[in-house]
């Protein structure tokens, strides 16, 4: 069913946007190669199920763990370099990972990999089951994100993002938090890749190329980096837009690039981030409604 497939794509995009938001939004570490971790998860899960005969539900967390393993390495690297170098490095990682998928025989090289449909308790996973799984994963990650800003961890990440030195003087080990954000963010991206692989039934290196990373970044930026609901809204808009307007699909990179420039210039906090036009409008409307209620009562 068409609607189901679109919903699955939205669900995948939301997970990716939220996972990038943990790294770039909450911890403030620019990543331009998020699709690499999506791909590592997808290929890990594909190989484990197709070649090693693992059940999908073991391959799913393993895919996350494999992505997170590379994520930890990137995180350890990130604490040694300035942000601009990190941005360039993450682009490099994306290209290297895609090249490995493209040229190494184990990964199917340019032919790609066929991925078996998952089975659980005798139920073969169709799109409905995949969608159900995505809703569950989205709910879990969303709950984590919602809880994060009010937790010590969220405060620590906020402190490190705002002023690393001041945070250090207050007892926060900035390095720990950066690596932690990379670990969690890449873990979620890896799991998402696993779901993608088993939903598609076939993966190839271009599915995880640099433009995909830019797409995910655009979603997070459009909705609002560092806000809890922003990445969800960005993912929804940018996944549905090509379905509604065909031309967006043809000029995808142009739209993403243009959006990034426009958002940075006019609304860097994103559509629903703190102090954005929409948020202020919403506060105003709510204020008026409450006033109305008070007057009526």
């Amino acid at each position, binding site marked *: 069913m068409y609607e189901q497939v679109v919903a699955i794509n939205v669900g995948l995009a939301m997970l990716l946007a939220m996972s990038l938001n943990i790294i770039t939004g909450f911890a403030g570490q620019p990543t331009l190669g998020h699709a690499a971790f999506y791909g590592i998860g997808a290929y890990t899960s594909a190989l484990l199920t197709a070649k090693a005969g693992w059940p999908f539900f073991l391959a799913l967390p393993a895919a996350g763990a494999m992505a997170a393993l590379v994520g930890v390495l990137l995180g350890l690297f990130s604490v040694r370099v300035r942000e601009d170098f990190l941005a360039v490095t993450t682009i490099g990682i994306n290209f290297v990972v895609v090249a490995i998928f493209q040229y190494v025989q184990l990964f199917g090289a340019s032919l790609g990999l066929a991925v078996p449909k998952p089975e659980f308790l005798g139920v073969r996973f169709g799109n409905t089951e995949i969608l159900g799984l995505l809703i569950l994963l989205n709910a879990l990650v969303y709950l984590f994100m919602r809880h994060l800003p009010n937790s010590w961890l969220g405060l620590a990440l*906020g*402190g490190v993002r705002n002023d690393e030195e*001041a945070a*250090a*003087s*207050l*007892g926060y*080990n900035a390095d720990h938090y950066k690596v932690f954000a990379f670990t969690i963010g890449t873990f979620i991206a890896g799991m998402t890749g696993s779901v993608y692989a088993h939903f598609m039934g076939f993966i190839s290196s271009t599915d995880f190329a640099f433009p995909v990373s830019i797409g995910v970044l655009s979603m997070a930026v459009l909705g609002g980096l*560092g806000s809890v609901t922003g990445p969800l809204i960005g993912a929804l808009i940018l996944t549905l837009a090509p379905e509604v307007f065909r031309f967006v699909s043809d000029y995808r990179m142009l739209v993403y690039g243009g959006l990034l420039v426009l958002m940075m210039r006019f609304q860097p906090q994103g559509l629903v981030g*703190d102090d954005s036009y929409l948020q202020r409008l919403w506060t105003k409307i709510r204020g008026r409604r409450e006033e109305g209620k008070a007057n009526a009562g």
Partner: protein
Amino acid sequence: MLELRNINAHYGHSQVLYDISLDVKQGEFVTIIGANGAGKSTLMKVIMGLVPVSSGTLLFKGQEIGSAKAWDRAGLKIAYVPEGRRVFGELTVAENLKIGGWNEPPAELPRRLEKVMAIFPRLGERLNQAARTMSGGEQQMLAIGRALMRDPELLLVDEISMGLMPILVNRCFEVMKQLNEQGTTILLVEQNARKALGAAGRGYVLETGHIVLAGSARDLQNDEAVKRAYLGG
């Protein structure tokens, strides 16, 4: 309480602090005055562990802390009000204060928060406001408040008067004196020598990375060289 013996420190290859020795005793209010670029802020950062010690001994309550990382030192009841306030702009006032109480016993935090708000009622009025939207004076209060959440025994303050209106500078100095009277040991680095020597009991003069003079605040105020160089007469 705090003891520095022959401390040297570098930024890369260039030496910033030369053979610094000073001590701050429990309950004292000590100031380090000096011109821009004398190394005052670096000295603060060395004590906080944000700039590494190249050589020398750094003791806090008799314990060597020179090699401990900044985030380990904060557990030692030393708190730091950095130059230029450095509050977390995107976070609210409440979050900024809460961050300051990291690793402190959670049961203590409400009491400390109340204490901070009693000293700076203005912060209590703005708890849910993003710190960046506040005035410079309010941000300075927040930076002090954030440090006080640690309930420090030693408070390091870097350039409290920078960029503040005179009336707010006075208020900040009053608060520091009050804290000192209540038992907090204070080490203040300050360009405004007149104010600093007026408030402190003892002082050091730092010039291009060397301590050139030390003494009671009164002696320094009456010292001809200090008068000429720092007190404008």
